[in-house]
């Protein structure tokens, strides 16, 4: 396709042009450190061109280039200071040439204000390796800031950290990921001292209601940062009460160094932050890819990057993960410790948190030393949990915690290690994010076939392995149904968002349960046999857990609902009511849910509604499940059997 003489000519022309530019460009362009050795620069540019470095994967990884749909490249990076050429965002070759040129200069560039050799140290090292820089003609600059920064990590290996989903904060609904740079000589006890590499959007404190919209559509800039891991543990484990999973990655020390060099460059970078795709997880994958260019990670995510998916992807690469560690949230530590106690002692521990007088009671005094220590530790965990999750905790909780701890210190015995078994297994064992289903069934006196596609993420009846228990987030789901007798194909259901969080209440935990649903469904109402009905429903309530079978959750909601459909007089109705229900794990594979709802509508069409739902799921494999669901409304019965696949 490309005949050689043309390429040759083009290259000569290109070099002549460059020479011209270099010779006649104003001196300021040549940098503060004196004019570069033009001949050598041209030589290097020529060498790079011959070796086609600008089209190599590593160069594209360094500059975060992505192939455009219609050819060419664009960098995902959005800070102009990241590029040495004004055309750098879309022109890998121009950027490479300009980068080489800038290496001759001591001019401070980028947001980090360093000479290019130091600000873009990974680029420098890669080009040096490929082009074999002659240090006498392109003097190597000392990069003390980088060296100091790098040495402080005492880097030995990399761990991918996954704080699990946290429903009560929309930004954390899908979990989060970041990297921990493990130190030489680090032990299990001192890993909190390691530093992390984290990518997050910078959201101004007064963001207000624009926050979710701008967060989704790239209205904020994302930056890389390095928090000490102990601050991250505090944030996720202590305050938000999220379990943390740690995946030790099998990287060589050389790869760890590459990752840190590129991270250092990222100090000059800013990316438009897109909540669903170019988010925390996505950009971490890019760092990992640079550490080991044989890994292909970001290519796997086209539309969205769900943190749990990235964990699944990394765990699926043979030999990449060398170990998995679990760090329970404080609330789960409390739950497991309570489970380990007989009822009497469990209650005693709880009474201590309310009345310090219990410490001198015979019931407490008669316990052996180890048991006393255990109860006091549990009491302190609980008091800390209360203090750290409340908005304005009363001072007396803190004082009571001090008193409990003082009593604890007087026992003069170290606490025994308590192993916490996670309630939810690690995320890579869970089903994939998207779901497709085919099924069929009966509705009243008709039969139908149905196809459903759901973008994400998990509902209460889906296989629970690897997901936050009792939490549901359904986003973007559409069901297409064909009714055989009526010979009609229609959109049966569509969900924009259907989020539900059940938090079992006991003597220790009191968080409310809540739900929110926005979507449409098909109803039979008044004269209309099949009518689309827009639904908006919000509810708040409580849940309780029991262990009669395997595990059951009973719940009740008070709720408000607004409907819009041509089936109603006045086209709409607004009302309120309640739902009671239960969710039952019968076996590891089999789960049942049943709910009953009563709603009375006072605005718009005056009417009321009684609904029943019974659903049953059987897990066939990690990504396959069978469902049988029965929906009842006034004179409207619907039975659906379906096969679901996660992908």
């Amino acid at each position: 396709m490309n005949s050689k003489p043309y390429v040759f000519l083009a290259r000569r022309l290109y070099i002549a042009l460059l020479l011209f530019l270099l010779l006649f460009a104003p001196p300021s362009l040549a940098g503060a450190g004196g004019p570069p050795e033009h001949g050598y620069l041209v030589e290097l540019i020529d060498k790079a061109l011959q070796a086609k470095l600008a089209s190599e994967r590593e160069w594209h990884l360094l500059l975060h280039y992505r192939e455009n749909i219609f050819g060419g490249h664009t960098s995902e990076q959005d800070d102009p200071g990241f590029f040495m050429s004004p055309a750098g965002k879309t022109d890998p070759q121009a950027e490479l040439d300009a980068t080489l040129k800038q290496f001759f200069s001591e001019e401070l560039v980028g947001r980090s204000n360093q000479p290019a050799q130091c600000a873009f140290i990974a680029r420098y090292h890669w080009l040096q390796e490929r082009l074999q820089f002659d240090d006498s003609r392109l003097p190597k600059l000392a990069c003390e800031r980088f060296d100091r920064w790098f040495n402080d990590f005492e880097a030995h290996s990399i761990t991918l950290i996954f704080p699990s989903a946290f429903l009560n904060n929309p930004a954390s609904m899908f979990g989060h990921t970041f990297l921990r740079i493990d130190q030489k000589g680090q032990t299990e006890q001192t890993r909190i001292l390691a530093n992390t590499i984290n990518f997050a959007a910078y959201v101004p404190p007064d963001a207000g209601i624009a926050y979710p919209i701008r967060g989704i559509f790239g209205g904020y800039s994302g930056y890389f940062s390095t928090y000490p891991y102990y601050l991250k543990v505090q944030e996720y484990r202590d305050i938000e009460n999220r379990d943390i999973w740690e995946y030790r990655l099998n990287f060589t020390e050389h790869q760890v160094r590459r990752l840190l060099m590129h991270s250092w460059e990222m100090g000059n970078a800013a990316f438009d932050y897109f909540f669903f795709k170019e988010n925390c997880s996505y950009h971490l994958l890019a760092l990992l890819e640079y550490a080991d260019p044989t890994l292909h990670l970001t290519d796997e995510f086209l539309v969205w990057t769900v943190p749990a998916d990235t964990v699944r992807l990394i765990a699926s690469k043979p030999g990449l993960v060398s170990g998995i560690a679990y760090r329970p949230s404080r609330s789960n530590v409390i739950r497991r410790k309570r489970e380990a106690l007989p009822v009497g002692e469990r209650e005693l521990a709880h009474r201590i948190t309310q009345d310090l007088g219990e410490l001198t009671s015979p019931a407490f005094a008669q316990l052996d030393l180890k048991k006393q220590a255990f109860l006091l530790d549990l009491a302190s965990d609980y008091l800390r949990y209360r203090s750290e999750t409340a908005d304005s905790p009363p001072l007396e909780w803190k004082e009571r915690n001090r008193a409990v701890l003082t009593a604890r210190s007087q026992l003069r015995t170290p606490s025994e290690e308590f192993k916490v078994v996670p309630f939810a297994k690690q995320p890579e064992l869970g089903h994939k994010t998207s779901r497709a289903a085919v099924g069929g069934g009966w509705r009243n006196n008709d039969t139908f076939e149905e196809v459903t596609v759901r973008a994400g993420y998990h509902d209460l009846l889906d296989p629970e392995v690897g997901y936050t228990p009792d939490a549901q987030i359904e986003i973007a789901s559409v069901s297409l149904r064909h009714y055989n007798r009526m010979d009609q194909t229609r959109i049966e259901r569509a969900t924009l968002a259907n989020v539900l969080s059940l938090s079992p209440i006991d003597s220790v935990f009191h968080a409310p349960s809540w739900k929110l649903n926005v979507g449409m469904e098909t109803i039979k109402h008044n004269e209309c046999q099949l009518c689309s009905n827009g639904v908006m429903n919000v509810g708040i309530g409580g849940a309780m857990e029991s262990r009669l079978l395997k595990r059951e959750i009973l719940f009740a909601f008070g709720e408000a609902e607004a409907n819009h459909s041509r089936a109603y007089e006045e086209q709409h109705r607004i009302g309120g009511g309640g739902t009671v229900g239960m969710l039952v794990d019968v076996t590891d594979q089999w789960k049942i849910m049943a709910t009953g709802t009563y709603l009375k509508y006072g605005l718009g069409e005056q009417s009321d509604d009684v609904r029943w739902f019974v659903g049953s799921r059987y897990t066939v494999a990690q990504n396959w499940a069978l469902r049988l669901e029965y929906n009842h409304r006034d004179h409207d019965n619907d039975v659906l059997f379906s096969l679901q696949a996660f992908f």
Partner: protein
Amino acid sequence: MRKGLIIALAVMAFVGTQVGIGFAMGIADTGPGCGLGKEVWKNDPHTDNIGKQMLISTTNNPIIPLQAFAITTGTLGCKNSGKVWVEERVNMFAFANFESLSQEMAQGQGEHLASLATLMGVLPEQHAAFFAMTQERYSSLIKTGEASPIAMVKAINDAIATHPVFAQASAR
């Protein structure tokens, strides 16, 4: 309260870096220097007051002011003049983890306590003795620590210096 503390740390450093040269992006670069630590210890702050002053944000993940820890500010990469940075690191750690430390000192073990011991140069084989010592002196250490976590670190240091087991470690 923990919320307040984390925010205090982050915001304090943020405010600190703003004193230097501000950049268009809102990310300031103070160049080398312990952005965070420097600001935390400048006035040996009373934590509660700072917590109140700084409580202007929430800790929800993307909302944490991350300037303090931006790679360009170099919370790492402090001027590594040996002991000064080591001390600052210990103080910073004690300040940020005071609640966990106080719990673990009473319990005679824990990762925060082990990490503090490591930062203070206590050898792994002496950790058990270190834990026993902080458990024994719990009341007085916490009283000191509530006024100022830095003073607590100093008190632990003094205790180490006079403790037969650690005499060697502190002499390092």
